[in-house]
């Protein structure tokens, strides 16, 4: 698992390695400082006639050591910050880039909110772990080893205390983490659900207030919050045992050193152990135990972020379901479309085909209308044309060539599609229109907007084409949004234009104007219009009526009215309004 992440380190390998080197250097110096100070203390204590020169010598050594340690620590701090931030930058870019290669099939698998969490919170967690690893995870064991060695060298017999205390503490900390981790994981899941319920409440506030359910909601939330509180407290209280446990060990060491230490000093006459060693032992003892504590913290942190890592890996491992072939065709001859014995299902595991037995020929320049109930696979049918999904059986041809043989950008450049769930991005109207064609001139944009019947309302805004669109296009009405999305697609000057229920919020008159415009200004473009309203497709060259993933009928308006019951039913219902309600 870690290997995959290491790929994202790239240019930050150097700072990462530098961090390790400087931290090792810092650790060495840091270990030698108490060694030297012990000598100094020893000198002060054991020498009857102190000489300032000797003290100064120790002092200068110590100051140099401190300065070195400062330099190493400072450099390591800098490189570590750079390496971990850089690593997370690369990782974030990698995940984002991977998502950009996703086909619709992949996108359907992940919800957009879960992708946002992966790109933000999860990557932040991994960054923190990385920082922890290159800084503390090297430092702590290293310090531990050095401190143990030094303690053994310095303390002789006294260091025996660690042989008992270290495994004891290590085992204790391990037990605590083992018990706490599952508790935390469970409570975090509950916590997520609590936050989801808050979001639900905020979103549905009109319902809450409309039914005056404020008190009910408070009670409901209170119960859930208290439940989580008790779970959280339990988990936290397990972790809270860490610090008393460590204190016990530190104190045990202190007592041991004081009692046994002074005994050894006196009995050996200062030969085996001296006073300086005793104080050095105290320092190293403290250090060893602190490092063990650090290790347990790292362990907790890594296990906590392992969930995040798993979720990121999931994205990185996702392979795009669609790619451009080699030696791809890079020109589209015309806007003719053929479906040859097409069967399609969204996943290999699905039992039923979403589309079955579709055989269809559309001439270049034709206007085709598609009608049908929800779930009749209208959108599915058209999404095969720009190869948003691949057929399961049969083939789809555009301009006489199988869509799987085209370069994806070429194909999608020539097949413009206005999605049912269309979206404007934050930025000016011009910015949004340029999605269709980056180099579009103002004249081209105005022309497209005129064709989409958007020019009039755009110019009615004080800032005209420079009007800022809020995220999600919330500051324009539904009908206006749809018209801008059509203009955006028109700017591609496509050979095939697909409108997937893109005029549902546009009034019938404007809708008719748009269609009339298509007819006179882009006659060579094949137009495919999915609609709920019969009036939107009524005068198409060909109307498809879809039901349950098949084409139930096709023909012109008059033929269908005479021959197709479904069509007739939809038509009567819409034109007669509610007269038959009574």
């Amino acid at each position, binding site marked *: 698992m870690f290997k995959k992440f290491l790929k994202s380190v790239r240019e930050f390998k150097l700072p990462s390695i530098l961090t390790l080197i400087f931290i090792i250097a810092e650790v060495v110096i840091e270990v030698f400082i108490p060694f030297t100070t012990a000598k100094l203390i020893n000198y002060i204590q054991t020498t009857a006639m102190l000489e300032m020169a000797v003290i100064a010598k120790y002092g200068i050594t110590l100051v140099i050591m401190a300065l070195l340690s400062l330099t190493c620590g400072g450099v390591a701090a800098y490189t570590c910050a750079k390496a971990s931030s850089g690593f997370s930058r690369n990782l974030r870019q990698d995940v984002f880039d991977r998502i950009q290669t996703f086909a619709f099939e992949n996108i359907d698998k992940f919800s957009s909110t879960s992708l946002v969490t992966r790109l933000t919170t999860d990557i932040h967690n991994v960054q923190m772990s990385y920082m922890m690893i290159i800084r503390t995870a090297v430092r702590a064991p290293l310090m531990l080893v050095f401190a143990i060695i030094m303690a053994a060298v310095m303390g002789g017999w006294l260091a025996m205390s660690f042989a008992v205390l270290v495994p004891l503490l290590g085992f204790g900390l391990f037990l605590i983490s083992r018990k706490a981790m599952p508790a935390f994981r469970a409570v975090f899941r509950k916590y997520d659900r609590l936050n989801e319920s808050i979001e639900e409440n905020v979103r549905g506030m009109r319902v809450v207030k409309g039914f005056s359910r404020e008190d009910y909601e408070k009670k409901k939330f209170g119960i859930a919050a208290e439940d989580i509180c008790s779970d959280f407290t339990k988990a936290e209280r397990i972790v*809270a045992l860490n610090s008393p446990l460590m204190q016990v060990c530190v104190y045990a060491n202190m007592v041991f050193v004081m009692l046994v230490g002074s005994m050894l000093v006196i009995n050996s006459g200062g030969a085996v152990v001296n006073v300086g060693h005793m104080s050095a032992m105290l320092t190293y003892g403290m250090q060893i135990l602190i490092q063990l504590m650090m290790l347990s913290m790292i362990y907790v942190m890594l296990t906590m972020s392992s969930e995040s890592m798993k979720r990121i890996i999931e994205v990185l491992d996702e392979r795009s379901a669609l790619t451009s072939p080699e030696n791809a065709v890079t020109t589209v001859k015309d806007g003719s479309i053929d479906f040859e014995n097409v069967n399609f299902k969204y996943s290999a595991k699905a039992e039923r085909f979403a589309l079955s037995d579709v055989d269809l020929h559309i001439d270049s320049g034709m206007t085709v209308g598609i009608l049908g109930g929800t779930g009749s696979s209208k959108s599915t049918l058209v999404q095969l044309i720009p190869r948003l999904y691949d057929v399961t059986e049969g083939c789809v041809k555009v301009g006489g060539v199988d869509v799987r043989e085209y370069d994806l950008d070429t194909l999608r450049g020539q097949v413009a599609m206005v999605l049912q769930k269309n979206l404007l991005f934050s930025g000016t109207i011009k910015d949004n229109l340029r999605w269709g064609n980056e180099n579009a001139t103002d004249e081209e944009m105005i022309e497209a907007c005129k064709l989409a019947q958007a020019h009039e309302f755009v110019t009615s805004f004080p800032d005209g084409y420079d009007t800022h669109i809020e995220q999600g296009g919330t500051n324009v009405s539904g009908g206006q949004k749809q018209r801008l999305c059509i203009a955006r697609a028109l700017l591609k000057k496509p050979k095939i234009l697909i409108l997937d229920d893109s005029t549902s919020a546009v009034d019938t008159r404007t809708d008719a104007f748009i269609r009339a415009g298509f007819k006179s200004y882009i006659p060579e473009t094949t137009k495919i219009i999915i609609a709920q309203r019969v009036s939107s497709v009524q005068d198409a060259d060909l109307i498809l009526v879809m039901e349950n993933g098949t084409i139930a009928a096709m023909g012109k308006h008059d033929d269908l009215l005479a021959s197709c019951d479904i069509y007739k039913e939809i038509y009567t219902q819409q034109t007669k309004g509610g007269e038959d309600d009574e």
Partner: protein
Amino acid sequence: MSKNNTPAKMPGGRRKIDFKMLGRVIKLLFASYPRLLPIAMCCMVLSAMVSACPAIFTQRIINIVDVALKAGHGWDVVAPQVVPLVLILVSLYVLSIIFITLQTQLMAYITQGFLTKMRRKLFDGMQNLPIKYFDTHQHGDIMSHYTNDIDTLRQLVSQSLPSLLQSCTIVLTVLFIMLWSSVWMTLVVLVGVCVMIVVSGKIGGGSAKNFIKLQRNVGRLEGYVQEMMSGQKVVKVFSHEKKVREEFAQINEELFQTSYRANAFANMLGPIIMNIGNILYVIVATVGGVFILSELPNVSLSGLGAYLSQGAAFGTLTIGVAVSFLNMTKQFTGNINTFSQQINSIVMALAGAGRIFALMDQQPEIDDGYVTLVNANIDAQGNITETNEHTGHWAWKHPHSDGTITYTELKGDVRLTEVDFGYEEDKLVLHNVSVYAEPGQKVAFVGATGAGKTTITNLINRFYDIDDGKIRYDGININKIKKSDLRSSLGIVLQDTNLFTGTVMDNIRYGRLDASDEDCKQAAKLSGADDFITRLPEGYNTLLTNNGANLSQGQRQLIAIARAAVADPPVMILDEATSSIDTRTEAIVQRGMDALMKGRTVFVIAHRLSTVRNSDVIMVLEKGVIIERGSHDKLIEEKGKYYQLYTGAFELE
């Protein structure tokens, strides 16, 4: 002790930390745990003090050993001196462990309890906020109070504040012991500590500044990612992947720049303080050496005591004292380091606390209503008496200032008279709107987006209060009616359906909490939802999550209609859905709506011809003014705007 250099006064902190916020958090903490918190704090202080004391005893033991060694004494001579000291040490340690266990366990309990209290306070306060708040704040921002901001508080309460208190205690205790031992040496240490505080303040301040900037950049990246992830399919359709990648790379780069700066500053703090500590250690050793060598009199509090009481002269600095000073220096710097590590989280927590308090301090929805809705018995003469039983009749209980109470039957007569309203003070959305709806009448609002249709319905249930004019409900000014009672007499079905996590049954029962399962099923049958619900895998017990994501749009609407139906209110406000559902489902939803409307006063924002045509009165709105009103036939006859809408372009949004 004029130079009381406690870490709390770090200049870096002072510049950024809003102490008022800190005060408020602490006050709330005390209010939540008036007994436990002081106990926990006592434990913290005591354990900190106790952990500072051993230095005295270890110093004495070393002294004794040192002296004994030089004198050549054996262990049998030393033991009686050392063992009692070790025993004192042990008892101190036992105490310390008891305190620390108590303290950490208590704090785990207090932290979670406090966070839960804050969460509930936040949530309860939020329930009382007017709809306006939710209309004017991004839901994501509201949510981040519960997630990010509360999380920063957790860090503050569980770590930063205890660490602040303990560091202060240890520093003060050590300072006292230092002064007790030697004033000169103490001064040396204090000078070093000052340097440390100045430096860490500078760096800590820089770090905090960068962390705040970092928060901003994180927010920006999050916004961009959110937009692009939800628009991923559009990106594909336009083959825009490369451009989006480049844009993201740029935002990502900026985040990297601030992130590494902020972290570099934060990471450097530790080594800098520790190494200033190391240098200070050397200086203390050197000065100690000088004092011992030159045999300068050692001014100390203990010496001062002896001097004042017995007139004894100040002694010279002993080796033991010098050594203990070295250890105390370590302790001093260690504690300052510990605390300095908390600066960032304190700054962030206080920023978080600021946002939490801002939400808590929002003006709640005011409700001065005193007219309430009660169950009523109505006799043949039309006399109304109050009862506790559910009679199917309701009455408005209206207490008057002279002490009398009148009862008015709840009929569902709603009149808006010359109403003016604007969401912002100087921008009126509705002008002089008058609407009369008699019991059982159906009033349809028709008009373009922004004409003010939804606004009118917002006023009837008092989501917003009118600026001018009057709204009367059964002849009573709605401002006098208690909001909860007013709203429970009004049912609403909104355009965007919101369902809650829970079973289908729970969701329907939301309309009337004491409804039996049978009542709910009955309501579902009435609204035409029963058919599809019974076909769900677990029928009425099917669990809905994520706003009923497993249901179709039409099915969700049917549940919302059933929810309103079970409440059985005399007045309904309906906002028909515009989103395209297929013609068949639409017909079912329509039938449900029609069933719901029967026998009630209904305000409907109409998007469908059939609804409009069947209404008793149609109000055509344009820019906040009712420009036409009347029945369908009358308006068609008048050949005005409605006629145009109906015949030519029917843009009903």
